């Protein structure tokens, strides 16, 4: 084992270093706040001779993802980064990447969508890409950002998966914040992640072939079913890879991580950087004698139904706390958690809280309030208001 280096770095640097350690061959990227440092750093690594890769400068995110698709189809290892409107502009190409079963990895600086224009954190950009066929991981801190990038390549390129992966790091809260990060040695990442050697066909002028071209009604559904089976198969691959990473590098990832859940009556379900503040809130509430726990979703796609059933099944109430909103319904996780439990006779009371949109901080007091509202619903055995907005600016809403 080589020695891990401890550095103080921004989240964007953490995902860039994670990507660099994976030795990508091609980096097509278009800069956008708050992800801009990622392409800047990748381009520096290449210019300084630290990374042997081709940087492709493009004129839009749509072209960035198109170039990712072309490069990946030749069998190259490909990484990019984007955020917000950039991910939105890529939208149609995201489906082509997953439909062509290309193991592209993208770091996303999770940022709100316009209008109104907002450069700060929420999860609307990647949640809006939920059905694009990409796996989705969310980091709580910069260490997770770096580690998840390395795990993402190994999972994406596994023969049983062959699908693209997004790794989300929260805008500014992580992308622009310096934290201490342990950076693995190159030789150890090389051992963990072998060179990408696609067994499937690749684009090669010497053996011309067409990919992703045309499937009439007799075949299309089979393609989609096969693609869906691959993301189902990724469930066990994710566990395998996370466990192997833990063995090698000492940091264990889980699709859902828990804190103080064993005897908890009420569990807070969170995603991304808010999970850290939520953990502090749980510590405070535990001191006050409240039986509360935290479940953090690291993997949102594939949605970890069996794990969530296990972890939340015995709780009396679950507060589903989300930095996204599907107007006309509620939060995305709430919808899927509801569906997870729909055929279970015994299930917790579930409440959905929308908060932290467009970069608004989610304070410890907010988590205490959401705990209390969920507890009240449990005690009343009734949910009056399934979806509530938390920490509204009263001066604006009045």
């Amino acid at each position, binding site marked *: 084992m080589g020695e891990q280096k*401890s550095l*103080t770095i921004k989240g964007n640097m953490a995902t860039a270093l994670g990507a660099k350690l994976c030795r990508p061959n091609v980096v097509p990227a278009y800069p956008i706040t708050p992800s801009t440092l990622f392409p800047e750093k990748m381009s520096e690594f290449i210019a300084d001779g630290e990374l042997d890769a081709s940087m492709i400068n493009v004129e839009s995110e749509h072209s960035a993802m198109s170039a990712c698709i072309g490069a990946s189809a030749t069998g190259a290892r490909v990484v990019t980064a984007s955020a917000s409107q950039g991910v939105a502009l890529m939208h149609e190409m995201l489906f082509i990447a997953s439909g062509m079963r290309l193991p592209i990895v993208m770091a996303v600086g999770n940022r709100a969508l316009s209008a109104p224009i907002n*450069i*700060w954190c929420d999860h609307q950009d990647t949640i809006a890409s939920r059905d694009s066929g990409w796996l989705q991981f969310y980091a*709580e*801190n910069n260490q997770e950002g770096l580690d998840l990038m390395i795990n993402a390549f190994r999972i994406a390129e596994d023969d049983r998966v062959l699908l693209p992966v997004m790794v989300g790091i*929260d*805008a*500014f*809260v992580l992308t*622009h*914040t*310096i*934290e*201490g990060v342990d950076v693995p040695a190159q030789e150890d990442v090389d051992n963990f992640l072998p060179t990408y050697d696609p067994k499937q066909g690749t684009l090669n002028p010497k053996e011309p072939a067409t990919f992703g071209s045309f499937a009439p009604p007799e075949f299309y559904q089979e393609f989609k079913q096969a693609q869906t089976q691959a993301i189902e198969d990724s469930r066990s691959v994710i566990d395998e890879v996370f466990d192997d990473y833990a063995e090698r590098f000492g940091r264990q990832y889980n699709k859902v991580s828990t804190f103080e859940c064993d005897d908890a009556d009420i569990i807070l379900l969170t995603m991304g*950087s*808010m*999970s*850290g*503040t939520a*953990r*502090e809130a749980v510590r405070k509430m535990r001191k006050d004698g409240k039986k509360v726990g935290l479940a953090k979703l690291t993997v949102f796609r594939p949605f970890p139904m069996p794990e969530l059933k296990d972890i939340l099944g015995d709780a009396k109430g679950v507060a589903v706390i989300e930095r996204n909103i599907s107007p006309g319904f509620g939060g995305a996780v709430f919808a899927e958690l509801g569906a997870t439990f729909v055929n279970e006779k015994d299930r917790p009371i579930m409440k959905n809280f929308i908060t932290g949109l467009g*970069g608004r*901080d*989610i*304070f410890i007091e907010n988590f205490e309030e959401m705990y209390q509202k969920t507890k009240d619903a449990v005690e009343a055995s009734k949910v009056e208001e399934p979806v509530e907005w938390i920490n509204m600016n009263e001066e604006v809403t009045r």
Partner: protein
Amino acid sequence: MYEVRFHGRGGQGSVTAANTLADAAFREGKDVQAFPMFGVERRGAPVTAFTRIDEKRIDLKIQIYEPDVVVVLDTSLLDVVDVSSGLKPGGIVILNTSKEPGSFDFGDADIYTVDATSIAVENGLGTETSPIVNTAILGAYSRAIGNVKLESIYEAIENNVPVKIENNKKAAKEAFEKTKGV
């Protein structure tokens, strides 16, 4: 947990000061965060940056609203920014000024001053009109607060400051020695 807020103007190095302080504390085995005021930046405009230091792991993922210490890199900001806003009771204010601590009043806050501008200019860091005072002010921080050693700030300067490393270390040392209010 210890929370620090830096006030300066774009170009003076407030963000580098916050980052360098975090790196210095990290080198002493502490957990740290450092971040700018989330948003857009312009040269000359007021800049705010933050550092969070703790003996144990920092889980908190919110901005800093009630700092223990406020560091002011440019006292011309005192007319336009309420620098002691949210400062914890009994907190500390460190100012870059040639004046004595007694010339300022921030309620019950302890005040320390250092002429970081002169020290920076004498060490060739920036110019008289736009001095880069961030490393000097960190020397004053180390003296006034004492939770990060001057030697760790030297190491962090080597790691975070791109040019004139020796001059920056000397500026930090001189500011450490010349801090008033101790």
